[in-house]
């Protein structure tokens, strides 16, 4: 048993090692448009991308919390990134998608206007957010410069929403 386990382990190591090397300098991202701007999040933080479905409003939440919806039996919160970023909410059209991401172990869906593409970007091309950016909530991981000259804002998924901003503290 033990020896078999070791072999399996070795195999796994040899399988994962080259990938680790790759991921050291290349980051895989998914790009999308919210409002006028292109954003990206690490591909690994995305659980799934779905077409818009009906949601239920939830009272006493900030306006960027649109409500909750049913994803195969689970109740997920739905966040409108446009409102969150201070723009007006867009009409939902055929390009609109819900991106489901895991934040602190919980699935949360975000409305985005349109997906652009999967991106591979070298780590050295990601710069820290410039001081001129309003990055109060620390939601920006960095700014990526693509080979074609596009500038993409990379989001810090874990900081996109915070419980204390949504549910007032004095209420249990």
């Amino acid at each position, binding site marked *: 048993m033990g020896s078999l386990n070791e072999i399996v382990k070795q195999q796994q190591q040899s399988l994962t090692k080259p990938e680790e090397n790759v991921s050291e300098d290349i980051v895989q991202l998914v790009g999308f448009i919210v409002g006028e701007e292109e954003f990206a999040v690490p591909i690994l933080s995305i659980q799934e991308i779905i077409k818009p479905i*009906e*949601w*239920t*409003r*939830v*009272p*006493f*939440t900030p306006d960027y*919390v649109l*409500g*909750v*919806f*049913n994803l195969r*039996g*689970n*109740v*997920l*919160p739905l966040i409108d990134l446009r409102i969150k970023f201070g723009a007006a909410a867009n*009409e939902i059209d055929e390009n609109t998608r819900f991106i489901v991401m895991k*934040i*602190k*172990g*919980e*699935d*949360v869906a975000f409305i985005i206007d349109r997906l652009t593409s999967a991106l591979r970007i070298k780590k050295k091309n990601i710069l820290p957010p410039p001081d001129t950016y309003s990055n109060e909530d620390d939601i920006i991981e960095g700014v990526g410069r693509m080979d074609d000259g596009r500038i993409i804002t990379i989001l810090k998924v874990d900081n996109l*929403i915070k*419980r204390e901003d*949504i*549910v*007032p503290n004095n*209420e*249990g």
Partner: protein
Amino acid sequence: MDEIQELLEDFLIEAFEMIEEMDQDLVELENSPDDLDLLNKIFRVAHTIKGSGSFLNFDKLTRLTHHMEAVLDKARKGELTITPEIMDVILESVDAMKGILEYIRDNGDDSAPEIDIEPIVVKLDAIVNGENAPKEEKSLEESKSEKPKIVGNINLDEITLENADEIDLDSLEPEELDAVLEHLVELRNKNEGPKKVGNINLDEITLENADEIDLDSLEPEEADAVLEHLVNLRNQQPKNENEQEKEESKESKEKKEEEKKEEKKEIAPAKKQDLSNEQKKKAVKKAISSVAEQTIRVDVKRLDQLMNLIGELVLAKNRLIKIYNDVEERYEGEKFLEELNQVVSSISIVTTDLQIAVMKTRMLPIGKVFNKFPRLVRDLSRELGKKVKLIIEGEDTELDKSIIEEIGDPLVHMIRNSVDHGIEPPEERKAKGKPEEGTVWLRAYNEGNMIVIEIKDDGKGMDPEMLKKKAIEKGIITESEAANMSDKEAFMLIFKPGFSTAAKVTSVSGRGVGMDVVKTNIEKLNGIIEVDSIPGQGTTFKLKIPLTLAIIQALLVASQEDLFAVPLSNVIETVRIVEEDIYTIEGKSVLKLREEVLPLVNMADIFEIEKVLEPEKYLYVVILGLGATKIGLIVDRFIGQEEIVIKSLGEFLKGLPGIAGATIRGDGRVTLIIDVGSLMRLAKETHNKKIVTESLNEAKKKKEKPSDYTVMLVDDSAMDRKIMRNALEELGINLIEAKDGVEALQLLKSNDVDAMLIDIEMPRMDGYTLAQEIRKYNKYRKLPLIAVTSRTTKADRVRGVEVGMNEYITKPYTAEYLQNVVRRNLGL
């Protein structure tokens, strides 16, 4: 090894259960010391634990139970009366047993270095030797506190059986004499085992001649005793060695393991020459578990998983029913409907039964929790110097396991509270003309979908005025709030954080945390607390708790466009009223319902829902009850009663005011579940600032002249739209145009539309689908939809009615006819 592990687990589970039962039985025994059945039962438990313990080589446990058993045996034979002092010692040894068992559970052996059984053993032996008297208690207590056993001028440890003759007994004080004798008897006992079981004289059996015994010919009881005896013999040798040579203790562990093997080898041939170890273990296991043949133990995780699956099944069932209803409308009269109906109903019945069955497997009698309270009350009353009797009723009432686990702590707090604050000291009770002994009742019974736990005492009761005064002093409420408070509300003050009525802080309660915890815990279970108290006569607490947490019955209501599920256990009734039934008193809206005056709040105001519906003649009111408070909640529609499965809103949204969670309905949509307790608090705030009659009319639109009205024309042909526009412009109403269903829906959301003319054949979204979509919204339920089409068959018309069209106009039409239809629908 696995089998031993299994055996050990079985032993532990059983031992813990038995000890818990024993605890309760012992307290009961104290009240009726002559109950022989009870004594026998307790004795048997001690004996079983001793037997299984010794088989598993738990020397310490065995030694303790052995001495305890001796006391019980004596009591059983009528040679000893159980006094409270003796009971203290027995209970102490039960506690030590618990401690050792817990140590075994965590560490696998019974060395339990923190538990010193010797002082207890000494006390137990003293009792066996009939030297226990209230006086004795003191000296024993002393000997417990000082480590070397010194009584008077004598160091007992120096006395052995060998040098006993040298002591001059005449020169001793009576107290010293007692102790010395006791000590000697104890030394003697160490060398003596039980003597005779059945026809066997155990003293004749030694390890050497064990082979000669024919175990098959023995009665089970005898066989047990013989085995036990042999094990004891085996164990005695190393024990003595240990005492003499303490340095060898490291090796002794290894020795024990060796012994284990040896012991098995030694006893096994005694039974049959080549009887395997496994068989023997099985035999023992059988003996241990023979009591519980009809039950199996199941991991709680499996039951939880099962319950989750059932929850999903219930949701799927709801969905199936919904789909069936849709299909039924569309294919009325078709043959397959009958069959489908049968399948759907049978699935729904089976699901319900299954749910009940699984719920029942998770149910435990509340006695499981109640069991520990006799002991608690006994210890407390002795500590506080009060006389308190605990009467337990309804311990067979069953509750979900998860609730049973949660309910223990709050109940401990409440019982403590009753004994500490409720029941007066004996002198005070006497002075008041009450019996010296106070009584606390602990009662459980079912009431509908709830279980009620009642904690009642006949103590001093609570004075609402005093409570208010205290609360004002502590800054919990203001004077004006206090003035408006009913007695019942005043009683609820004791659940406020930081409120404690005990003048003196005892070790038991009075730090002002307990009752606050109770309330939080009960609310977590969606429960209700009711308090009633009469000064001088006592206090009654009622905890009402839903039977199960996962699946509940709910009333579905709509407030404007939004649906909410209200737990049915908090719905007292539903009524339909007209605006004239609402009274405004001092700027607050109330509803007079029969003899009661209830505060009335619009649900849309509580949740700050935008009002889009025009007020109707009738208003629908849900009367909600929680604790002592009742309110009327205005909703816009009753949807119906449904079984719902509670789901959390997740880490980010849970704990929102007024919302307990969410459920997924038959149509796949999410509906929020009301948290009644929290909603009541919100409603109180809303009630103070919003007058219902005003809020109801917020959505009323003022429309007098034709230009106040807007009609939407939906047609993909620009020419057809033009024809309609030409015909209707004469009326002086506003007209907006859409070229297909999708555009129409968008325009509808951003415009205040009073009627729609809809073509059927359109790209992207046709007229039927458009009508269907529009009717999904509550606020467009009454919006006139007029189909204007060249499709003239009867089937088309029927379809139009089905999807919710109000009228059906076929092209071509005259301008006059169209005007009439629109005018009629707008009410012009």
